[in-house]
């Protein structure tokens, strides 16, 4: 049995509602006791790590990363990406499917999860909604889920066709998965690199009109509402405009969509 005491840190555990100085005892890699500073009862003989001035927190989860494997190992591999995540305190990451090929098959999903990939932490693949993320033919979500996929998304190629999106939401709901939609009507954002406004004008950059985001968000929320019977689950990624936020907030009040992931469009 190995025992480790982490002493003097500030424990931040949002799920438990804790933000206070705490000492922690780990036994065999698991939390055995949490107590006020100096009050651990079972710590006898344990190795001590001084965490003064540091934050102690449960392993962080990044539910939107791009590991670039398969196909773009020159940018990032599952091993290098997860090593970087581990260094930053993450113990789980959900990997988006914009790989080459797109992760639209159980084979690719399993390949990502294979021990040979050398992941340093847990990887949760997010599978593509449509074949090749082309926005046309829906994938087999049941097979993808049993291979290990935790959610469905066409990532940076948002599902623009209303019929396809409706079908994806319904099919994902049947197998208990949520659809993550990148909030952008890409038909309105060709060549654009930031939100449209006086600043994009001043910088000489093509801007994305706010409607390019809000129109997709509002449409998808309307569909989720219509699909309430099958408990469709939508997750809105990359919201960055007041209009889209307002739509999400309104939908959450009415209880039909998950909290939006709040992340500016320019970050990835």
């Amino acid at each position, binding site marked *: 049995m190995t025992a480790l005491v982490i002493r003097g840190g500030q424990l931040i555990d949002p799920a438990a509602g804790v933000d206070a100085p705490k000492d922690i005892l780990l036994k065999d890699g698991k939390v055995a006791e949490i107590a006020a500073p100096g009050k651990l009862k079972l710590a006898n003989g344990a190795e001590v790590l001084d965490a003064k001035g540091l934050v102690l927190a449960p392993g962080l989860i990044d539910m939107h990363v791009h590991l670039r494997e398969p196909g773009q190992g020159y940018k990032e591999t599952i091993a290098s990406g997860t090593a970087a995540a581990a260094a930053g305190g993450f113990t789980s990451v959900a990997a988006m499917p914009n790989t080459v090929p797109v992760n639209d098959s159980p084979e690719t999903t399993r390949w990502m999860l294979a021990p040979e990939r050398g992941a340093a932490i847990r990887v949760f693949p997010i599978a593509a909604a449509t074949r090749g993320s082309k926005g046309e033919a829906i994938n087999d979500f049941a097979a993808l889920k049993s291979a290990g996929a935790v959610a469905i998304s066409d990532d940076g190629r948002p599902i623009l066709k209303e019929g396809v999106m409706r079908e994806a939401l319904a099919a994902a709901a049947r197998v208990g998965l949520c659809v993550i939609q990148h909030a952008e009507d890409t038909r309105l954002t*060709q*060549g654009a690199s930031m939100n*449209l*406004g*006086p600043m994009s*004008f*001043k*910088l*000489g*950059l*093509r801007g994305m009109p706010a409607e390019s985001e809000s129109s997709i968000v509002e449409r998808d929320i309307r569909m989720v509402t219509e699909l309430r019977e099958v408990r469709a689950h939508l997750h809105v990624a990359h919201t960055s405009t007041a209009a889209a936020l307002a739509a999400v907030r309104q939908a959450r009040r009415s209880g039909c969509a998950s909290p939006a992931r709040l992340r500016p469009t320019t970050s990835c």
Partner: protein
Amino acid sequence: MDLSLDGLSGVLSRATFLENQNPLERTRTLAKRRVALLFYESSTRTRTSFELAAKGLGADTTLVSSLSSSIEKGESLKDTGLTLRALGAEAIILRHNSSGSAWLLESETRLPVLNAGDGMHEHPTQALLDLRTILAHFDPSTKTCHPERAQRVEGPAVPVEVNAETLAGVTVTIVGDILHSRVARSNMLLLPRLGARVILCGPPALLPELAAGAGPGISVERDFQAALAQSQAVMMLRIQAERLAGLQVDLEDYKIRYQLTEQRLAAHAPSAIVLHPGPIIRGLELTAGVADGPQSVILEQVTNGVAIRMAVVERALLATEQGGRA
């Protein structure tokens, strides 16, 4: 390059000094220093005047353009800049089709980079030479511009000391494809700092309403005649076909509303000066009669480009000597 008003006066003052200096003496200023011109877009005026300016100061210049260089083989902007630095370039004059490229090249090479136009963003030396042109025609006693160069009893032919009030009461209208114009952006940000009012004029497709929010002293006026009637200087712009990106512009309708004709000029702005950064398309944004007419100062702008660029090239290389940035 964010020049203070003092820095601006310094550039204008050096431009006048260098322009009037004995050419042989002038070549000692930067004798055998190395300046690279890196041009990803075609250019006549800017490239030639930068080159003549650097050579006029005695520097060795070399031109790398996107055609006929390794850029064609896929070499990146960063690697091209590092290569030029390794060849001994002490400053790079860059024209590039991406907004922000001059900033990027400077941060990657740590060399002074003179922005000769980056995408739709800025063209700072054009605004400086436009300012010098406007000042040469500006009469401070009446706060107006005249097509004849202002007669000055004493001091240099072009004022070189400027402050936040220098152009108070002056209105400059910039007309046409504002959306895609780096010249418009640089001018609309520079001229109000000297007290001028800038009116932007053009159709909504080429001039979004939010342009007025780019800085202080800027307003949007869709009616060309109304804008002309308020203006001491009118700056016409070319429709930039290469940046329209699928935008449909009805050129016949554009000409009806926004072409500067001799009749329009005579009726609404008979004493204003007419500027154009070039290249001009005769018969589109302005008529040949206006381009060649008595109110046109278009070729003076070109001439002023050499003096202004001598001053900024000198400034950039002196900044390197002092370990600072341009």
